[in-house]
């Protein structure tokens, strides 16, 4: 092996080790898969959680479609309303939808002001290469149901997971629309 070759090899290995060392020092892995029970515990620690079922009227379904600008596949909506010390702490919805050819389920938590509190991936049956990484899901935090809640507006796309990014954005819009329609109907 020539000396220049040895130097390059050493440099590349050092780079690799340094980078891997850096990776190991990073915070814990953020992407987790959860059961409904685990997700609710994560979203509402120390809260009382009540499962509720809303039966939408055709008019409510139409209104939810209009607000979400997308499909509302069912008139039966289950939500999990949390209270802490008698005060509303938020409402969680579980939305299952197709990504590419297979489904994913998200938990979308809506705060008492009607904005997104958090989005968690509950299950994802597509290959995990199609799952956005890093802080992508944090973009939804504090988003309200307005025209900026769209891919390529407030939500930045992610290469290689475009279909997941779009499906997620659509699901969040759908949940916020359903939450608003149900709230307007007098049921949280």
């Amino acid at each position: 092996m020539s000396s220049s070759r040895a130097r390059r090899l050493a440099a590349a290995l050092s780079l690799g080790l340094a980078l891997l060392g850096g990776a190991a020092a990073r915070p814990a892995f953020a992407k987790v898969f959860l059961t409904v029970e685990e997700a609710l515990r994560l979203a509402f620690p120390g809260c009382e959680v009540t499962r509720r079922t809303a039966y939408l009227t055709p008019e409510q379904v139409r209104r939810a479609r209009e607000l979400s600008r997308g499909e509302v596949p069912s008139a039966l909506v289950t939500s999990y309303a949390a209270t802490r010390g008698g005060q509303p702490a938020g409402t969680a919805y579980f939305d299952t939808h197709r990504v590419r050819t297979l489904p994913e389920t998200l938990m979308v938590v809506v705060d008492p002001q009607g904005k997104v509190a958090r989005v968690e991936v509950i299950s994802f049956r597509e290959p995990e290469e199609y799952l956005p990484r890093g802080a992508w899901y944090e973009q939804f935090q504090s988003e309200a149901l307005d025209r900026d809640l769209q891919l390529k507006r407030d939500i930045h796309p992610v290469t290689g997971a475009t279909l997941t990014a779009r499906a997620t954005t659509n699901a969040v819009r759908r949940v916020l629309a359903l939450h608003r329609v149900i709230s307007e109907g007098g049921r949280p």
Partner: protein
Amino acid sequence: MTLLRWRCAVLALAAVLFAGSPARAQSTDARVQELERQVQELQAEIAALKGGSAGGDAGRLAELERRLEILAGEIEKMRIGEAAAAADESDYGLGPAASKVYRTERGLSIGGYGELLYQRFDDERDDGAASGRNDQFDLLRGILYFGYKWNDRWLFNTEIEYEHGGEEVALEFAYIDYLWRPQANFRAGLVLIPMGFINELHEPTVFLGANRPQIERVIIPSTWRENGFGLFGEAGPVSYRTYIVNGFDARGFTAGGLRNGRQNGSESKAEDFAWVGRLDFTGVPGLLVGGSAYVGNAGQDLTTPASGSVDVGTTLLEAHLEWRWRGLEFRALGVQADLDDVTALNAALGLTGNQSVGETLKGHYLQLGYDFLAGRGGERALIPYVRWEAFNTQDEVPAGFRANPANDVEILTAGLAFKPIEQLILKVDYQDVDNEAGTGIDQFNALLGYVF
């Protein structure tokens, strides 16, 4: 409606929900829809009954409502699937959350993509000579993806590639994964070399340009796959892949690049191995920044009478950055390859003069696109784009050889991409191809691509 009929209806509903083979014949979606319809009818009728009921029926009505809620809950479980199961004992020593991934369903997943490419070449080269290139209309690629999950930890992924209308058939990758934990998973088989943008993500809807960047064909020889094994995983905003693979076969190296040195998993010579690693940072939404390195010999027992064994040590270093903000998408990539023992390699291959394999190969490109339909709702996208790339596959050659100026290339690509839906794309562009020899041939391209 009498309470007897109510009970019958609820029991019938429960029977549909939990029935055996007849119900399994229906799709889950159809079953859920039917149950939802029936639950809504029951709910409406209970509400009507409440309005007209005497006090004595209140208890029974409450019981019916309770049962209705149970059925609504069962529908919710069917929708959500396996995630609706209650948290149970943690698997494999992990916490319940982390072990959830191992409870996902087993089975087959299918996907694919394809590209139909029309290329119209200029009749003249830049120096005015006849180009001699014929226009071409090619079903460039048809790819079928299959993934199979045997059980909670073991899965298989493969892509079968048909090129040029089926004239060439190959496996693009075929590997087995062992999912241990998010930070460390194992992979073995025919793997994609994790360098650059295109080699691992080359579906036509993912990159701009009818043709892939030339740098990611001649220096990073996409689609570059080799037999090997290694680790992959994520830790916070950082993801990594690191593999040991069989090395290039330097017998295929040319003045034009490394492309023919790929072994593609076919009876690969395994006298020399290589290490490749990649790191990406995605801590800021829309931003991807990372790099990769490849180090290994490519001689594969190549010998010359004068030099004996020729190692052909090969090192590639690459850095990349992508930024996507609203409708904007920007990419930058730079790569350098360094080869040892090129004089001996040239001798072994009988290469003389300007035919020398490059001792150093360099290239970089910048690409910018903007979706004018961004934020208007819907999936449609209309993206004008421009890409500038410069590369030289003979940036340095050994003493006694000279570089061919035709290998010092600049390509300016300008075009338009249209996506009617996310999975379909039409790209048209014009490529101004220049090289230092003046023999560049400009071309117009149109590509129809799909993914599913």
